[in-house]
């Protein structure tokens, strides 16, 4: 773990009073390595290590902590601050119902499953969500969401694969208004941020349903490209938050740091399993401990 590596780096610092450029150089190298090994993006790591350096240099070596522990504390606190600390990352549902939520992201990230999980979560919060399958491309995608709806005893809009996604979404929103649903969750097809036609489709859907939340669903095992993908979705469409999936594996999840660093948008939920009850509200300190582990 990083704390152990920093302990040994700082054995030589024992007895010295102040952290200097020189004596923390090696420590910062260890911090950089730890973050790169956690799949945090190269440029994000560079900026972050620079911030740690600024915070550390000139600080007195405290009596209560070893220098290694002190650097770990600075790194830990800076990472938590980067991830939004204890800023409000709750869902924004403060609008006249029905409130729309769009789920977007790369192929296979976990959008459809997360739609089901979110519907279950909202139901537990006494809300009445409508699930809308708007992926007409992937074989049996509509059937997949309908199956999840059946498992939850929740209604799924009856989309057909020969319809246009924008039309499905407009019709579904009208249906939700007429039938008393207070939330609408739109499942969209996975797509690359460089696919202009499909990114335009998302913009058209956004214009049609005016969502309160556009959640970018990202796989926790994503590597360096998380930056380009998240930037692409955010610049083109504007995301309001992130769902980080498959955190029940052993991926460090550094992609979450990268995504927050470049978009500024908070992680709102984490997926912790394949079942529909495996969704939790995001806690920054838990992810940070996992990355520094």
């Amino acid at each position, binding site marked *: 773990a990083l704390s152990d590596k920093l302990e040994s780096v700082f054995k030589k610092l024992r007895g010295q009073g102040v952290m200097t450029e020189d004596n923390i150089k090696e420590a910062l190298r260890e911090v950089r*390595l730890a973050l*790169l*090994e956690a*799949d945090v*993006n*190269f440029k994000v790591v560079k900026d972050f290590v620079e911030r740690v350096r600024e915070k550390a240099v000139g600080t007195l070596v405290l009596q209560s902590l070893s220098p290694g522990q002190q650097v770990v504390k600075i790194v830990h606190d800076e990472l938590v601050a980067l991830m939004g600390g204890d800023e409000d990352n709750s869902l924004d549902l403060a609008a006249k119902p029905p409130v729309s939520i769009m789920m977007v992201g*790369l*192929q*296979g*990230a*976990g959008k*459809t499953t997360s739609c089901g999980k979110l519907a279950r979560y909202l139901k537990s919060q006494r809300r009445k969500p409508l699930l809308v399958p708007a992926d007409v*491309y*992937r*074989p*049996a*995608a509509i*059937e*997949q*969401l*309908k*199956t*999840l709806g059946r*498992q939850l005893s929740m209604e799924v809009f009856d989309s057909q694969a020969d319809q246009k996604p924008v039309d499905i979404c407009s019709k579904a929103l009208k249906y939700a208004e007429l039938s008393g649903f207070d939330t609408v969750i739109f499942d969209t097809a996975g797509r*690359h*941020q*460089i696919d202009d036609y499909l990114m335009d489709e998302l913009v058209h859907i956004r214009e049609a349903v005016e969502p309160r939340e556009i959640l970018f669903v990202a*796989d926790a*095992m*994503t*590597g*360096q*490209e*998380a930056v*380009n*993908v998240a930037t692409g979705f955010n610049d083109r469409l504007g995301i309001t938050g992130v769902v980080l999936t*498959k955190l*029940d*594996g*052993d*991926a*460090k999840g*550094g*992609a979450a740091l990268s995504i927050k660093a470049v978009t500024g948008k908070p992680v709102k939920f984490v997926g912790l399993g*394949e079942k529909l009850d495996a969704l939790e509200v995001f806690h920054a300190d838990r992810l940070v401990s996992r990355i520094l582990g």
Partner: protein
Amino acid sequence: LLGKKQIDADVLEELEEILITADMGVKTTVELIRTLEQRLKRNELGDGEALKAALKQEISDRLAQVNSDLDVSAAKPFVILVIGVNGVGKTTTIGKLAAQYRRAGKKVLLAAGDTFRAAAAEQLEIWGERVGAEVVRHKEGADPSAVAFDACKAAVARDCDILLIDTAGRLHTKVNLMEEMKKIRRVIEREIPGAPHETLLVLDAATGQNAVSQASLFKEAAQVTGLILTKLDGTAKGGIVVAVSHEFSLPVRYIGVGEGVEDLRRFEPQQFVDAIF
């Protein structure tokens, strides 16, 4: 002389950034950069261009060493088991492989071995219709080993050339799911001696260093014999395949370059390396 040293250091830093951002991983990047540094010390390399060329050659050599084509004529029915973590593209890749073998006039059978995920069997059935391959499936919640068993029996009885067995996505850290996969393998082995003749681990090109952990545990549990790298039509470079291929001696059989039935290509080490640089 000092000037050259500084230029070399700058070039190495640039190359390090290229390698890391291509998802080569810290370990592989450090190894490759060290190799270049040693060659620099021995005055084997001239300028920045020579450094880059040497690096590209080193990477494509590593990939070429392990490279080998999949020969499905080696057995009949030739049984291919497809495994990997959730959402990487197993089912879609099976559809593409089936199409390729159908185009070659082969009789292909598909097994819907994912009995857990919503509409998994339906997804594979649509692929079967698209490519002209029959699909063996059970109800959702059935025992995946039972599906594998029936599919093996059917592949022999129907005189199929190829049997492709789909499995549910599973995280390599879930012991019970890895045990389930081992059981599927045992059932296949018992039913058709020598099978599965190929066990393909599917990796998503956007995956970071977790791919190494995936490959390690999947290889140990299921004797993986080949890799598929998907979603290379995105912006991810798939650099993790270099470490995985090298460390576990696994050839990359195919790459996925899209969601359509034709979007499967043979893996070309040189093209792959060129795309990174």
